Structure formats: C-alpha cells, structure tokens
C-alpha cells in the first residue's frame, strides 16, 4: 500500500472515531485495502457522515455485497465499497448481521444508487432493508421461494 493511501485511510478512521468512537468497532487492513467494521445500529449514521463530512466526501457508493459465513456467526457480512471522487480514495464499510434477525437499515436515503444493490441482496440472500422504498425481487422471478446465494441452498437448485 502506498504511503499516501495508508495515510488517507488512517485519516478516515481518525475522523470517524472523532465523530463517534463507537462507530469504528474494528479496522482491517489487508492487501492494501482498508475495511472499517461498523455496528449495525450505527450503519446509516456512519454512512451519512462518510458522505457529508468535508474531510471524507465519499460521494459514490460503488458496490454493496453480502457474504454468507454459514455456519459461523454472525452469519452475514455486508460490505459497502465507497469512493471519494474529489479525494481519490476508496474505503470499505462492513457490518455484520445475524441469521436470527437478518435486518439492517437501508442506505438508499444516503446514496440512491443503493436501491438496486440492496434489492439484489434481498433477492439472493433474504436480508431485509428497513426504509427501502421498493424492496422486492430483482433478478429472480416474483414467485421464487428461497434465497439461492445462501450457503445452505444447493448450487443445483431445489426440485
């Protein structure tokens, strides 16, 4: 990781910690990427801060993914790839969701581009996003039952 990129990532962590110390529960640096683990309850507020804070300015939500770690708990990990176009920086926000209560706040009010990304995660993993204006299946047909990308769903499909 270049010195400049490392310094940039540390700046983001410091700013978020200064804004709310609870927002940053863990910082993972791997292969030059920085991932900030955020508790589920503070996800939307942290996302809003990342977008609005003049020192951060993460205006582009590049991607939102889910990862199923079945049978390990917490089961689902949501990763949000953010880009700050003016500051030329990338960061990843992560939050973990349990299998018993797979519900998290929608970030559509922060970045409208999260609309289809969250619909895809709802479709394939079955995670509910509270506050999403139009949460319904996007890739699979309407009557489909199940969440295929979960690890306990067979690749060949169910008969």
């Amino acid at each position, binding site marked *: 990781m270049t010195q400049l990129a490392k310094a940039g990532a540390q700046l983001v962590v410091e700013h978020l910690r200064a804004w709310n110390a609870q927002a940053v529960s863990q910082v993972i640096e*791997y*292969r*030059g*990427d920085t*991932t900030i683990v955020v508790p589920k309850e503070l996800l939307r507020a942290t996302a809003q801060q990342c977008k609005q804070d003049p020192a951060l300015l993460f*205006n*582009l*939500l*590049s*991607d939102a*993914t889910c*990862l*199923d*770690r079945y049978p390990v708990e917490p089961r689902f990990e949501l*990763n949000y*790839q953010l880009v700050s*176009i003016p500051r*030329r920086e*990338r960061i*990843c926000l992560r939050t973990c969701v349990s299998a018993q209560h797979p519900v998290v706040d929608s970030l559509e009010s922060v*970045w*409208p*581009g*999260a*609309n*289809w*990304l969250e619909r*895809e995660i709802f479709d394939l993993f079955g995670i509910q996003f509270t506050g999403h204006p139009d949460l319904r*299946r*996007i*890739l*699979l*047909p309407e009557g489909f039952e199940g969440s*295929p*990308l979960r690890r306990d769903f067979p*690749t060949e499909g169910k008969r």
Partner: protein
Amino acid sequence: MTTVETAIGTTKTMVLNMGPQHPSTHGVLRVLLELDGENVVSAVPDIGYLHTGIEKSCEDKTYSQAITLTDRMDYLNPLGNNLVYCLAVEKLLGLEVPKRAQYIRVMLVELQRISSHLVWLGTHAIDMGAMSLLLYCFREREEILKIFERFSGQRMMTSYIRIGGLALEPPAGWRERVKRFLDMMPARVDEYEALLTENRIWKGRLQGVGYLSPDDLIALSTTGPGLRAAGVAYDNRKLFPYSSYEEFDFNVPTRTESDCYARYMVRVAEIRESLKIVKQAMDKITDQGPIKADAPGIVPPEREKMKTEMEALIYHFKIFTEGFSPAPGEVYVAVESPRGELGCFIASDGSPKPLRVHFRGPSFINLQALPRMIKGQLIADTVACIGTIDIVLGEVDR
C-alpha cells in the same frame, strides 16, 4: 395507471410493455412504460431474464475454473472480465505478474474496449435509423476478433488472461496484424464521425435527450462514459491505476452536456485514446520474456517441464486436482470496462474454492438511472436512452 388532465378533458395513462423481446433493448430487458400519449410518465425496468447464477456457480469451482464463467458475463468485454477476476485473485494471493504479461493484457483489453464501443456505435446508430453504420462497425470489429483468435484460439470467450499472467505465448506475426489494424482504424473512425457528428438527424435525435446532472449520476452510482459526459473525469485507469496503466500516456475524454450526444462524443474519443494505448503497449512488449508469474503451486508449469521434471509434474497434478488455497481474506478490485467501473469482490476461507465471488457490473448499476433519464420524454427517446447507457444483459443479470 393515473388520470391525466388534458385540454379536452381527463384521460388515463396507458401501460405499455417493452420487451423482453425487442430489437432495441439490446438483450432481454423488459421495460414497463406508463404513457400519457407519447410521453413517458414512468418507466420500470424488469430484469433477470438472463440470470444464470454465475456468482453461485463460482463457489462450486476452483479459482482457475471460474475464469471461463467470467467471460460470459459482459459478453462484449470477455477479456476485461477475465482481467478483473484474475487481478482480484492475484491480489488475494499477493502475486506479482511480470511486466511483459501486464503490457500484453493492457493491449488486448484496449482492443476489447474498441471492439465493444464499435458494437455500441453500430447498434445505437441502427436504433436511431442510421442503418449503414452497423455493418461498417462490425467490419472493423472483425479485424479485432481475428486478432483475438490468433492469440487465444477464440474470437470472443477467450479466457486468455489467467491467474499469474496469460494462457499462451503471443502468436508469431502478431505485431504485423496489430500494426495493420492500427494503420487502418483512425481513418475509419473519421468516416463514422463524418457520417454522424454533424448530421442534423443524429443531433436532432440525441441532443438534449436523456439529461441527468452530474450530482444525480453520482448519487445513482453511475460510472463510465455516462459520468464522463457530465464532466466528471472518473476513470479507474487514471485514478486507481492497475496492470501498469500508470506507464501509459492517454487522455480521459469528458464533455459537459450530459445528454445522449455527449455520451456519443465521449465514446468515439475513447476509441481514439485506446488506439494510442494499443500503439504504446505494442512498442513496450518485448519479443522474449515471461508471460506467467513464477509461482509453482499456483501457476501451472510449462508443458515441456511437466513432461520432463518430477516437481513440475507434481505441481501440475496438485493444481488441476485439488487447486491452490489462498489465505482467508477479502479483496475488491475495480477496473475500467467500456461501460464503467467493473469490480470483483472475492472472499476466501482458505479452501481451494472461493467462499464468495461478486461482480460489480456497471450495466446493472447504470441501468438504475433509466427511469430518471426518460421521465417526461417521448417513447422514441426511450430507445435513445437505453442505447446510450450501453447495457449488456449478461452483466446486468449475471
């Protein structure tokens, strides 16, 4: 359906189904158009007709086996898909690819970008009624596909970019073929511009159509030529360079009008910039040198070595039976595909098969902007807007 007040009384809007079989949706895209006469009140895209479960299938295959699946997502940019996946696996492994392989990758990916923009231009023109351009663009694209066939044996689904480098040595005589293409192409691009750029009908159909402000585009996560036509110079090759792009000298074309015509101008300028990069890459590629990284347990050994050396045979056996296991971790890599930011997120759990592979498809995310783009415009503008976003359904649905 809603009621609409008109000068002669109230009427109802009509919901019209466009697709999934439709020549102008460029694939199996269904759009539900709510119309007030000829004006679009709202548009709801319905996707998933080409969903083949590529991301789930990747979890059942070893890291090398999944490369052939990646070709088939954005089927106009197979080399770009191979590249983003292999870059992500190489990042996960901490593997360095030799410079010669990086330059060949850059050259082929830029040729792929030209071929993708040619398909876009030909199909967009025929949608707008300029029918002759389709075959002109496909004629030039044939030359590029012939070059790919010489390199990899395949015109489209090349799987030529592999983990650690390339699949095969570049073929004999490749320089003459690429040089011939580079000599021919600039004049052809001038021909396309002579036919379209100052054409009254072309401008009439595209200028002022499909406008979205740069803030709206960023909020909707649009990337690629759509964002660059709004004045935002966001190009992963410049901002977050990969695969030795920092060594190449090229510009990132931008416009400010952010309508269909601006996006056309940006893409044609990008073809010219890609030609520059191909020329530079061709000059940088040496005739001798490695095309794969030196990583015995990961990159398969040369066939001759495998037949004569015991260690090479054992490595070959292990790689193709059980596969290699990267350390547990997650990475995200983003490249610049002809459509925007193409990303690959891979999570490894220490086993030979990936735990999760996710592709950030620019077509999927850029298509979100369609309803905002065509609201209040005419049906004919819908065709222009779908074309200008440049979607490939294989990438939208995966």
